[in-house]
């Protein structure tokens, strides 16, 4: 088994009759500038709930930083809120395309309600900044909800 189906995840999956593969690639639009910080990018909105399991990037520079939060529901993933916050190296979150495990599973799969989005703010590297760049999420699209599906207010019961 590549992904962890924790009790939390199974609780969510149980609320849907159909679980379909969802692969979402987002271009980062780096232009090759040192420590460049383009406008935040977002996952594509879909009309069904989804469970995000892991990510990969198509570039090879662990110095690129990322800060992720979800939009509706709004949760911050990166806890550093210093006045000059240290963002997280991408390789702590995502796998790299040319490694033995190109997809890195999230520390805990993340649930997003339909039409919800993840916001990702990237910072280009200090050394060897890249041009372009793409981030791909591997997820499950959750269809045919049972009793309305799952929501953050439901918990385990």
């Amino acid at each position, binding site marked *: 088994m590549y992904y962890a189906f924790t009790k939390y995840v199974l609780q969510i999956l149980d609320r849907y009759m159909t679980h379909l593969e969802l692969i979402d690639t987002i271009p980062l639009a780096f232009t090759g500038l040192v420590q460049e910080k383009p406008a935040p990018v977002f996952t594509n909105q879909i009309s069904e709930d989804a469970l995000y399991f892991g990510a990969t990037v198509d570039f090879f520079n662990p110095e690129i930083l990322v800060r992720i939060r979800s939009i509706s529901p709004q949760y911050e993933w990166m806890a550093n809120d210093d006045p000059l916050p240290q963002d*997280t190296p991408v390789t702590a979150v995502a796998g790299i395309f040319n490694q033995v495990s190109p997809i890195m599973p999230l520390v805990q799969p993340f649930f997003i309600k339909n039409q919800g989005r993840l916001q990702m703010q990237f910072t280009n590297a200090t050394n060897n900044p890249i041009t372009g760049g793409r981030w791909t999420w591997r997820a499950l699209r959750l269809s045919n909800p049972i009793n309305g599906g799952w929501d953050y207010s439901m918990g385990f019961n």
Partner: protein
Amino acid sequence: MADGITLWGLTKMPAGEYVIQTGNYIGSVWQASPELTPYGQGIADNYPTQIPWYLSFNVTEAGTDTLEARRNRTIVTRPLLYDVLILGAHALVPLPANSIVPNPQAFIYLNISHNETGIPWATPNRIGHFPVPAIAGIDTGGPTSASIAVAANSVVRWPEAFFLPAHSRLKLEFFVFGRADLPGFVVPLRLIFTLLGVKLVNLSAPAPQFVTMPNGAIVPVGSRLPWYSTVPIGVFKSNLRSDFQIDPGKQTIQYFPPQFCDVEIHGIYSNFINGVLPQAEKLSLKLVDVDSETAWEPSQSPTPAVFGGEHQANPVMPLTLPHILKGRHRMQLMIQNNSPDPVVGGSVTLVGVRQCEY
């Protein structure tokens, strides 16, 4: 084996299956799947909302000094609003452009303690810290870096999940070792250290106080702490704590500091199993629990057969089964250097879980 009785690591459950008390897997590999340990799962079960959580901080020191006293850096995390279950760590160690250190990350050491207990995760001895790659996956620099660039395992899973209650803090004490064989060399300290975990949200109930383990034992939350015990390889050459080496043809015996309580040893990391420093396979070892009459090793083994390293998919090479080191017992490590070169600054770290608060 009787039902429900732990003999030496395995427990037979009433249904007939065997479980390791720490969970039916061991090892530091993250990318197989960040599954929770039974202890971690038992805590997480109390929280209806679980969010990925990353805490990164910059440990960069521009001018790391040649003097040991000036090569320390302490980070105290800010109190958080929610409980967090920390599962692993990642460290980005950008290489200096003209670095001549083959693996500088192996020489950055760390100790962690939680402000509510003050218990250090590293056992107290002359080093008193453990190498960062024993607790964090290492990436170094970008595509042009001379060293490993991206490790096979960029996140290292801890031997046990650590429950960080809301409004409390972790203290991380970094220490950069020097290079005793390169007098005057200034070791860089550039590190972005990231803790990975799950933010636990339950607005209607307090944090759990106890967790039921697979063998039925009920243990307090906070009683299973990550445990790292590091000993230097060789003998000290001066009164500095970073100045030790084992010369060619020499043999040394080291003892890991005993604990007053039981410790589960899950695996072993060494900072010289990296394919760069001299011929790790020519170092042979023998590792025994000296206070156990039945524990012995019949032969000397090459170190890569027993120790993991940061270049490997599983940097903390697991034991075949977690070894229960009884309170006040000691692990003894014999190392013999059969290579033509000295090993400078090599250390060995046992990684496990201490059960002192059971």
